């Protein structure tokens, strides 16, 4: 398991597409801080949260889907033929990648925000904020990776995560009759944002508390990961 995890992390580090998708949120978050003057940290982090969700979903789906695009899955399974171990190592590597990228993005936003406005108010408990940010980044990357492994097709995986993150929330917001269903979607300014910010974003009108929002995102990730692992273990490579 340790060797498989090391190999997965090495593969992600050597993939330019994955690293770009993981680093771009920090860069965009920094740019947003420079143009969007906010007095509260969570105000600055609202944009960062959306960018981080997208970046991690894309990084994860590229990491998972490109295994099949380039047939490197053959080497993965030759080196780690126990497929449960191989799939788990991938998911753990994605969790670590996502948490790392979230930490970087949060640090960039917070540090630059403090430079731009030394009176920047940290309006949620720091521990909750950091834990929420790391969990949000980690689960988003794992969600994306699971989509890539489940679909086994890079364009389809990236397209699917974009639809889940961008299109579905809009559809549900337009369809007001669905009421609170929208709060249980994984992305948009809802569960992911509530988890990442340590509080429900006012703009989305979500009523879910942070922990519940985290559980929603965790449940979605677990469902997709189960589908991915089942497909990996039960079907031919």
């Amino acid at each position, binding site marked *: 398991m340790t060797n498989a995890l090391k190999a997965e992390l090495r593969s992600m580090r050597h*993939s330019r597409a994955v690293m770009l998708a993981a680093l771009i949120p920090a860069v965009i978050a920094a740019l947003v801080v420079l143009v969007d003057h906010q007095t509260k940290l969570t105000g600055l982090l609202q944009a960062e949260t959306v960018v981080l969700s997208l970046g991690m979903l894309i990084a994860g789906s590229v990491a998972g889907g*490109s295994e099949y695009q380039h047939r490197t899955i053959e080497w993965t399974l*030759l080196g780690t*033929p126990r497929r449960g171990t191989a799939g788990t190592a991938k998911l753990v590597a994605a969790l670590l990648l996502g948490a790392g990228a979230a930490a970087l993005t949060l640090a960039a936003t917070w540090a630059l925000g403090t430079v731009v406005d030394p009176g920047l108010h940290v309006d949620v408990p720091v521990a909750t904020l950091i834990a929420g940010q790391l969990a949000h980044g980690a689960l988003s990357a794992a969600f994306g990776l699971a989509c890539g492994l489940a679909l086994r097709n890079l364009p389809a995986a990236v397209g699917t995560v974009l639809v889940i993150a961008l299109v579905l929330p809009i559809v549900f917001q337009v369809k007001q009759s669905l009421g609170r269903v929208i709060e249980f979607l994984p992305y948009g300014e809802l569960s992911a944002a509530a988890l990442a910010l340590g509080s429900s974003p006012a703009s989305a009108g979500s009523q879910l508390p942070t922990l519940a929002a985290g559980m929603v995102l965790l449940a979605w990730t677990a469902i997709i990961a189960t589908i991915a692992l089942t497909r990996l273990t039960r079907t031919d*490579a």
Partner: protein
Amino acid sequence: MTIAIQPDRGVVTPPVTRRLPQRNPVALGYEPAAGAPMIAIRGLTKRYGNVAAVQDLSFDVPAGSVVGFLGRNGAGKSTTLNMLAGLSAPTSGTATIAGVPYRSLPRPMRVAGFGLNAEAFHPSISGQRALRALASRIGVGRGRVRQVLRLVELESAADRPVGKYSLGMRQRLLLAAALLGDPQAIVLDEPTNGLDPQGHRWLRDFLRARAGEGRAVLLSSHVLADVAATVDRIVVISRGRLVADQPISTIRQTASVRVRTPDAGKFAALLSGGAANVQRGEADVLTVTGLDAKPIGELAAAHQIVLHELTPTGGSLQDLFFELTESEGAGLR
């Protein structure tokens, strides 16, 4: 060595089983069974719906030998190798390496090295990085990466992205990846694709040397000349079924030489006095078995017999291959 022709299995002869060479069991994570064939396929079947890609296939690859695995496109070779590698699951039957399915080996790439697909590398990553990622997965050091790159003569291109490699270079990288764990069994699918003539010869010598070290080599190839020059034994499949499993030497033994001479009667008598078996066809034509063209020509020269033709015929791997697979239709590369 006995050769049996079975109606349902084609030409089948028992393989020579050699004892596995000694290796540190701790390094392998298991202890190989002495005397067991390194690779054993038993009743292997793979069905996709109603289509049987491989049907009841059985053969062995003993340690210290090179076995050629032949068949036309779509005959089921790659499907068989994928099942051996654990990449696809058999519908029934078993494919084992040292008595264990590949997926159950504790350190699989240290026991068996597979070179199945030269395209299975990320194009933007250098050959060296691709091998290092694989090395960290199987727990071998960077020194071994440099070693295998040197072994396949790819050191100078090690830092170039794989996407800029020629097909021949990717084949060498594939071989390097297969050898990374210093495995006792080497399985290669069409390894000569894209290699230049020097590469063909290099690979032949390389594989023979590995077999000489006691390793088992299973080689799937369409290049019959390479196979004939490399292997100890051939396994031929057609439409997923075994049609031949025999030593390459038995094919060579069936070779004949067509001799055309105006002194056919006199020369036939001379030849029959030795080890040759002579059959007389047309008035001036002899078909000689048991002797190569060279001693026949020398015998003719020694007795001042004029020869109008001296042609080796039959007995080639190509002839056997076409004979065994001709019912499968066209499509051989």
